[in-house]
């Protein structure tokens, strides 16, 4: 049986599944339920400075997009950091940590961008016995307007500065949470590293408007006839998050910077994908908000089963294994030639591959009068669209041509050698082949 025990920058937890700093981790009550359900750790809902807490709106806080059967694909929120007094949160954190010493309790923090503020609050929070800090430089709404959250996360110099203050203020691990609302994720990641951060976590939520109320002519969630952009999360953001994780993991400057992966993780497989791309552990929010805390049991069983099947004994065995295979487009092998292939036994004759290919792609699928669909190898560019629109998983696959096989589309035989764009004759910048 695989060992899911996790050690992320020295923070130990029974498994690599943490709840992200968000509504599910706002209170002792919720966190106790989470630990009882099996979560390995929590990042407590972001704490603010002492004094009167922030206030939230008193109307809807969430907007959503749905897929078939109202499956929630994306959620956005306009909730702020914790709206409960700091001392209440600290008391609760201390009690929880005392009762769950083996579970990870991380404090998410967001205070104004002043050295005193950060240096005063971190030791105060550390007294709870928490295992580390996560600096919330990510929240895209509300707090950013006050010069916090993503307003910091979008300025690498600020990230570096605050990270340094924090490292000076505590011996506990400091994780910098990154906003995706930037043009290049490497700049804030490198800044965090320069500031001495022990790790980065990403992604925070994405600026978004999920829906427009066409009667009221207002974005939703709508508060008294108006709406604002909120932070987008859930399964829909996973591809964006995976790419940003991979960019940091494969960048030589940041390759050794530990990553806590966040963004639409819903199943064990999502978690394994983040970890394969270099995340040391993962954080989950929307899936728990959609289905409740129990989902972690599927994540644990699924990851264990897969690790057993693959022979991985600990999560460290596969973290980052996919990173070396993330490359730039120009290095992809242009001599690797595939063709779509439709398994006639699995085909249910819906014709979606045909419509997609005929209307929007390369006219590479033939349809017979009795609804048999076949690939025209001489037209197929192997774009994979048919695979993706087919409702039957595994019905259409990509067959790799062997060296020597004829590519009927180009009338040239497949060559065995690797050849990429940098060497291609059509590339004016091509380096002459040796």
């Amino acid at each position, binding site marked *: 049986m695989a060992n899911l025990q996790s050690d992320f920058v020295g923070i130990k937890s029974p498994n690599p599944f943490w709840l992200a700093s968000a509504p599910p981790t706002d209170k002792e009550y919720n966190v106790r339920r989470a630990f009882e359900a099996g979560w390995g750790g929590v990042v407590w809902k972001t704490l603010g400075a002492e004094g009167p807490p922030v206030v939230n709106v008193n109307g809807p806080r969430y907007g959503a997009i749905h897929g*078939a*059967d*109202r499956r929630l694909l994306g959620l956005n929120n306009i909730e702020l950091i914790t709206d409960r007094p700091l001392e209440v949160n600290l008391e609760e954190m201390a009690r929880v940590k005392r009762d769950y010493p083996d579970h990870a309790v991380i404090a998410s923090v967001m205070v104004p961008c002043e050295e005193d503020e950060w240096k005063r609050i971190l030791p105060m929070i550390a007294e709870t016995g928490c295992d580390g800090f996560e600096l919330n430089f990510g929240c895209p709404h509300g707090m950013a307007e006050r010069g916090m959250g993503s307003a910091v996360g979008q300025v690498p110099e600020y990230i570096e500065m605050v990270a340094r203050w924090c490292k000076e203020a505590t011996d506990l691990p400091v994780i910098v949470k990154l906003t995706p609302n930037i043009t290049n994720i490497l700049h804030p990641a490198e800044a965090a590293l320069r500031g001495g951060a022990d790790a980065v976590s990403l992604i925070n939520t994405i600026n978004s408007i999920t829906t427009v109320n066409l009667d009221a002519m207002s974005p939703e969630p709508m508060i008294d006839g108006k709406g604002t952009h909120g932070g987008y999360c859930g399964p829909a953001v996973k591809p964006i998050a995976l790419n940003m994780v991979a960019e940091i993991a494969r960048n030589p400057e940041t390759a050794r910077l530990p990553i806590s992966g966040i963004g639409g993780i819903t199943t064990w497989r999502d978690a394994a994908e983040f970890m394969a791309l270099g995340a040391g552990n993962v954080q989950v929010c929307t899936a728990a908000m959609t289905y409740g805390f129990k989902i972690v049991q599927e994540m644990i069983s699924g990851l264990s089963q897969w690790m057993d099947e693959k022979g991985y004994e600990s999560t460290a065995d596969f973290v980052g294994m996919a990173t070396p295979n993330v490359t730039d487009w120009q290095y992809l092998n242009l001599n690797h030639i595939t063709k779509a292939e439709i398994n006639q036994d699995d085909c*249910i*004759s*819906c*014709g*979606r591959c*045909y*419509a997609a290919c005929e209307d929007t792609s390369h006219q590479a699928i033939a*349809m017979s009068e009795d*609804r048999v669909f076949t690939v025209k190898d001489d037209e197929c560019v192997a774009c994979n669209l048919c695979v993706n629109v087919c*409702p*039957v998983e595994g019905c259409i696959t990509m067959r790799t041509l062997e060296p020597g096989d004829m590519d009927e589309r180009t009338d040239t035989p497949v060559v065995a050698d690797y050849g990429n764009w940098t060497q291609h004759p059509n590339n004016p910048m091509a380096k002459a082949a040796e």
Partner: protein
Amino acid sequence: MSNTPFSEGIQSGRLKPAELAENFGDLHPRLDDHEALVAADRCYFCHDAPCMTACPTDIDIPLFIRQISTGTPEAAAKTIFSQNILGGMCARVCPTETLCEEVCVREVAEGKPVEIGRLQRFATDVLVETGEHPFERAEATGKKIAVVGAGPAGLSAAHRLAGYGHDVTVYDARAKAGGLNEFGIAAYKSVDRFAEREVEWLLKIGGITVETGKALGDGLSLEALQGEFDAVFLGIGLGGVNALGVDGEDKGGVDDAVDFIADLRQAKELGTLPIGRDVVVIGGGMTAVDAAVQAKLLGALNVSLVYRRGKDRMNASEFEQDLAASKGVRIITNASPKAVIGNGSVREIEFGYTDDNLNPTGQTVRLPADQVFKAIGQTLEGAGLPDLERGKIAVDGTGRTSVEGIWAGGDCATGGDDLTVTAVAEGRDAAEDINAQLSA
């Protein structure tokens, strides 16, 4: 003392009003909004969809389901009605399991098709209930067309012709329009006067006059109609009922299933309808099943449906056979009636067993029966009709008969199965041809 299922003979009031109300409630209640969305989400929006091809009226099924899933059932209904103006009734009575749903790719893949019929019912009900009619009449052409028969074929033709701006007069022998929709379908398939409401809604197109109590040979003659109108469409159905041709057929208690079904549909109080204790229905089609099931639902103790060939040869779909079985109807196959036995009224009926080629095996069986319903097919009635073929009015693909200026469609004409949806398609297509000819 009131009657029970055990009371001998043909009696009314075998069941309590509450039981009857439950028995004759909607067979498939309309999907609610949530159910409709869930069902619609299952549609794959197939290219050149097999369901469309299977639909005799070529409804654009993927499009209307997508319109439901995007919250516009009214638009979905218009998609349906533009091909099939009786889409509401067809959603209730179509044997979808042998038409659109049989070829649904999810039926092929999972044995569980998209619920096309129920989705169609949902969309059409939403629109019909608004009371609004989604089509407008074109400018009046001054052309006059007679439609004989206010059943599915006639109503479909009339609506299409009226839409083109022609003035249509629809004649029907009965006191009410609707044809088989009104008189020939099991009550639990069309509750709450749906057939009547559908006709009222259909007529909102304008330009259609309905004259009831008039039939060919009974106040109407084809020649006179041809003289008075620019075109004539015949959708007169099959008025005659086939006889068993056995001894004792004239005994009391031996009735036509179609009359029983019609009486039941028109009854104000189901408790007043008499039904036997031991009922035998002879036949293997939809009419036989409708009669057998409803006899059971009225409180008959024993209902047998007897068919002369094997189960797989029955015209009633598997769904209908299962429905009958689930209601407690005993289906007996490979038995052909030989004699009706009784003193004045039927007491027993004797059947001879037959193989699938209808050869008698020599064995016989007698079933107790105080009521027998004949449902072994209907025949075309009337003299002076255009040329017939296999007992029906011969038509070409556009509904033209052997007589210039006379079209025909529905059960009375050749071509297609005897289904409501086929009749609608034939009426519509004949109307298109009539319009094309009148506009030429």
